[in-house]
Structures are given as structure tokens and as C-alpha cells.
């Protein structure tokens, strides 16, 4: 209502000023030539003039102060502009258990690999939940003998610092796109002659054990149509300024946004 109110006040002000400045001179003219007019008409003209005078004087003293429809800035949480990547993997063959950090081969040079299978049955590393589509077997990626390395298609070793070569075994088109930069996150300078460019590798965005990109909370939506109408609205409603009566009904984004208070 506040926005409507102030709009109404503004237009009232404009109309009243306009009416007075048009009527007053014509009233003047009427008075100048009023000799022939009957006294009843004269009296009514006088009262119109007086009414206009009262109206104009009261407007001059600004009884309806202008109230800006611009609301306070909407708070934007700091995470909405945080450029930190979703994953910060250690990118080293290390295993953390509590306060201890082991190299993978510290245990696995004595522990044998399980028999070749397609179903993961482990008693260690239970915190790793493998949800990698049809890839349900640790040793599809990890090397059966040297745990500090990954395994390639011929059973050879892929060094731990080249994870993209492992992913490329199955994800050929994505690997090709990543090599050319159309897939994956590139930061820094587009002009590499002027500064450094960084390109994140597969596991710097995707968890290899659960590769889909994580869902996240969306940053606040546009606030532009909520000017002056934020009071008493919760956040959810506030982000649907065009929807009347909750998210279910109402106009689309290109419908009229006025007067749905």
C-alpha cells in the first residue's frame, strides 16, 4: 500500500496544483467581468476561489510529504559473491584418519587388493560412498598394486597428479572439451600474455566418488519490483513479487507487476 499511497499523493499534488493554477486566472477574469452576473453566481464564484485558495495554501505547506518508494538495499549474503571453488581436494595420495595422515601405500603395500569383482565390499574406507553410476568397483580407477597411482586401460599406472587422464578413459567427449577449454572452470587472465590463467582439473570440481556437480542454494533473486513493498513480507514471497496468493498462481514474469498488493 505504501507505494500506491505515495503514487496517489504525488498525482493528487500535481492535479491540485494544475487545477488551481488554471482556475485562479479564470476566476480572476470572471471577477473582472462580473458586473452583469447575478449575485448567486458571484457568490458561488467567490466560494470556489476561496476553496481553491485554501487548497493551494495547504499544498504550499506540503501536508503530504513525498515518500520515496525506494526501499532499503536487500541484504546479499557474502557467499553469493564467493568465488571459492566447490572442492579443494588435496591432490595427493594421502589418507586422513582422525589426526593421522597416511600415504596410501603405507598400508596397501602389505594389504593385498581384493579379488576382481564388480561389487564393492570393503571394511575399510567406509566413509567413502561410491556413487559413480555403473562404476561400482574401487579398482576400476585405483591401481591394484600401487595405490599411489590410478590404473589405465591396459593395467598400467597413471600418476596421481594426472587425474584427468584417468577420467578420460570413460569421459572422452568431456575430456576433449576440457582440453580445449569449453568444459571446466578457467580463471585468471583470458590474455595469457598479460597474466596467469588457471584451469581446474576434473576432481577440483567433481567428487570422483560422487561425480554430479553438487546442488547449492541459489543467491537471492531480483528485487527490483519490490520497491517500497517489502514490509511484512517473508523472503519467499519477496522473491515472487508477481505472484498473487503464493507461488502457485499469478502472472508470469512478463505480466503486469502493478497493484497486486
Amino acid at each position, binding site marked *: 500500500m505504501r507505494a500506491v499511497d505515495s503514487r496517489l499523493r504525488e498525482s493528487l499534488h500535481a492535479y491540485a496544483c494544475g487545477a488551481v493554477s488554471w*482556475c485562479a486566472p479564470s476566476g480572476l477574469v470572471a471577477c473582472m467581468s462580473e458586473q452583469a452576473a447575478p449575485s448567486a453566481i458571484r457568490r458561488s464564484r467567490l466560494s470556489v476561489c476561496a476553496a481553491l485558495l485554501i487548497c493551494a495554501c495547504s499544498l504550499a505547506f506540503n501536508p503530504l510529504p513525498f515518500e520515496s518508494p525506494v526501499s532499503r538495499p536487500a541484504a546479499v549474503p557474502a557467499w*553469493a559473491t564467493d568465488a571459492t571453488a566447490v572442492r579443494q581436494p588435496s591432490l595427493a595420495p594421502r589418507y586422513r584418519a582422525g589426526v593421522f595422515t597416511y600415504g596410501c601405500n603405507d598400508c596397501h603395500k602389505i594389504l593385498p587388493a581384493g579379488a576382481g569383482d564388480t561389487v564393492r565390499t570393503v571394511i575399510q574406507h567406509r566413509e567413502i560412498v561410491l556413487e559413480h553410476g555403473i562404476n561400482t568397483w574401487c579398482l576400476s580407477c585405483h591401481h591394484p598394486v600401487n595405490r599411489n597411482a590410478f590404473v589405465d586401460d591396459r593395467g598400467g599406472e597413471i600418476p596421481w597428479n594426472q587425474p584427468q587422464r584417468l577420467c578420460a578413459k570413460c569421459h572422452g567427449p568431456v575430456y576433449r572439451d576440457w582440453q580445449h577449454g569449453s568444459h571446466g572452470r578457467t580463471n585468471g587472465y*583470458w590474455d595469457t600474455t598479460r597474466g596467469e590463467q588457471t584451469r*581446474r582439473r576434473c576432481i577440483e570440481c567433481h567428487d570422483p566418488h560422487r561425480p*554430479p556437480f553438487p546442488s547449492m542454494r541459489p543467491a537471492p533473486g531480483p528485487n527490483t519490483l519490490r520497491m517500497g513493498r517489502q514490509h511484512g513480507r517473508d*523472503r519467499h514471497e519477496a522473491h515472487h513479487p508477481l505472484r498473487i496468493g503464493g507461488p502457485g498462481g499469478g502472472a508470469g*514474469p512478463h505480466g503486469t507487476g502493478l497493484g497486486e498488493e
Partner: protein
Amino acid sequence: MAHSREDKHESAPHSGQAAPEVSRRGFLAQGTAALAGASAVAAALSPLRHLAPGDVPTVEEFFQKHYKEMTDEEKRQVFARIRQAAEKRFGVELDLADPPPMDGVEFVYGLNISRCIGCRRCVHACVEENNQSRAPEIQYIRVLQMEKGSINVETADHHYDPPLVPDADKYYMPVQCHQCAKPPCVKVCPVEATWQEPDGITVIDYDWCIGCRYCEAACPYWARRFNFAEPEIPQEELNPNTAYLSNRPRQKGVMEKCTYCLQRTRVGRMPACVEVCPTGSRKFGNVLDPESEVAYILQHKRVYVLKEDVGTIPRFFYYFDERGSRYREPITADGPGGDA
């Protein structure tokens, strides 16, 4: 009543002609009308009392030349004045640069619709970088949540607010200035306050803009924004690294738009929206460099041009991956694509 008028009539000096006859009634009525008129003028002028000091331009501001007509010396003076005004207004010392377009560079933007998750971080990174008004709110990027199955902006929603994105049944299409090669916004500008630079970026001289908003009406991508009120930016959020043609603080009543962050990109850096994108859906570069990411995208990916039929030849391209959205249900052994 008639008696008093006659009295006055008699006492009034006249020379044969019908002299102006002033009766008490007439005098009162005329006086009232005159007073009403004067009051009306005062009332109509009363909003002028609310003029802020910055609302009336100074002589230097009024006679400032168009950006393209200024000599280097004049630019130096104007930039110094803008710095001074910004310091007075925000209490922040601006680093106001004017990076020229680079030779052999034409900027092109690629956006992977298959990968965008609609998290809106680009929107807010852009606001922070480009000093848009926080109240009333101005944002250059509008992230559309689209119905799967078609590219129909009529059914899009940019006020979506689920607890988590992406919604598996939707896809997301951020829209911002497309930096068209045939920009209708430039064509309609009656004062030539906006033009296309040699590197493809359409810029605005905010001090030359008259705020007629024709460009806003002409733009098919809803990319131009108008400062309806004095832009409000908290002092601690003002980005001091500015350029004359892009993110310097604007004033009330002028248009503004995305400039591909030219204060960053003309010195070789990525735009703010590219830097913040967590998914890497946003790609930016020099299309004239055949080794660039955007050149690869244009040559090898399936590319979509929004509203290609309007003939504006945008420098902003949406592209797709071979396999579509990967945030459906995970592939399982008994599901499609599985072994069983």
C-alpha cells in the same frame, strides 16, 4: 452591496470612458483569486525544495563534451573532477582508468546452458564489480529458469527461489547484454551517448546520456537498466577500480548496461561473472585468436543465438554439450545405461 459599488463609482476619478470599477466584492474576489494563483505557483514549485545539491549540474558538468570529442587534456580534467565528486559522495578514492580497446581483439562470450545450475552468483559478482545501485536494485544479469523441452522465454521465470538449485525439471539461461554487432540500442539513441567500440563492446557515456530510455525499449535482450533514483552504494562495497566507460559511479536518470567488465577485460582479465561461476559454464575470450576457448566453442560446439531472427548479430553465444543435463537421477545398474 449595490450601494457601496455606486459610492466607489462616484468617488473614482474617470474621464468619460468606462473606468475600471472596483467594488469591495470585486476587490475581495480578485484578491482571493490572485492569492490562490500565487499559492498554486508556490505549491507547484514546492518540490524544488527537495532538490539535492547534486541535482543541479555545475557549469563544468553542464559544458562537458562528449567522450569522443574530448582531448586528452580535457579528459584529464574531467576524470579529476569525477574522482573528486566520487570522493565527496562516497568517501572513497577512485582509481578511474580509461583503458583503450586492444588491437586485434574482439570479445565474445560463450555460456554452456547444459552446465549452468542457476545459482545466481554471476548476478551478485557483477553488481559488486560494476558498482550498480543497491537501492533501487540494478542487476545486469537476469537468470531465466526455463522449462525443459524448448527455449521459450515466455514461460521463463527469473524470480525462482527453491532451497536448492538446479531443479531437475528445469534448465537455466542467464541473459545479459549480448554486445550485438548491429546494436539497435545504439541506433535509437537520439544523442549518440552510446556506441560500439572496436573490440565489440557497446558503451555509454553516462555524462552525455539524457535518460530517454529509447535504448531500453529497443534492446531485445532486456539488457539495459535505468537509474530511476540516485544510486545507493554502501561506502565499503564501492569498487574503486573503475573505468570511465564502464563501472564508475553513475548518477540518477541515466542508462547503464553490461560492458563485459571492460575495466578488467581490456587489461587481459576475465569478467567478474566468469571468475565467480562455480560450474565453469561461462567462457570469455578473443574470438580473433583461433586458439581461444570461445573460438573452439564456435567451431566445434552446438551454438544457440537467442533471438537470432531479430538480426542483431550478438557476440554472446549459448552452447550445449553432447549429453544434456547431468543432474538427473544418477545412472544405476538397473536404470537406463546400466548393466542389468
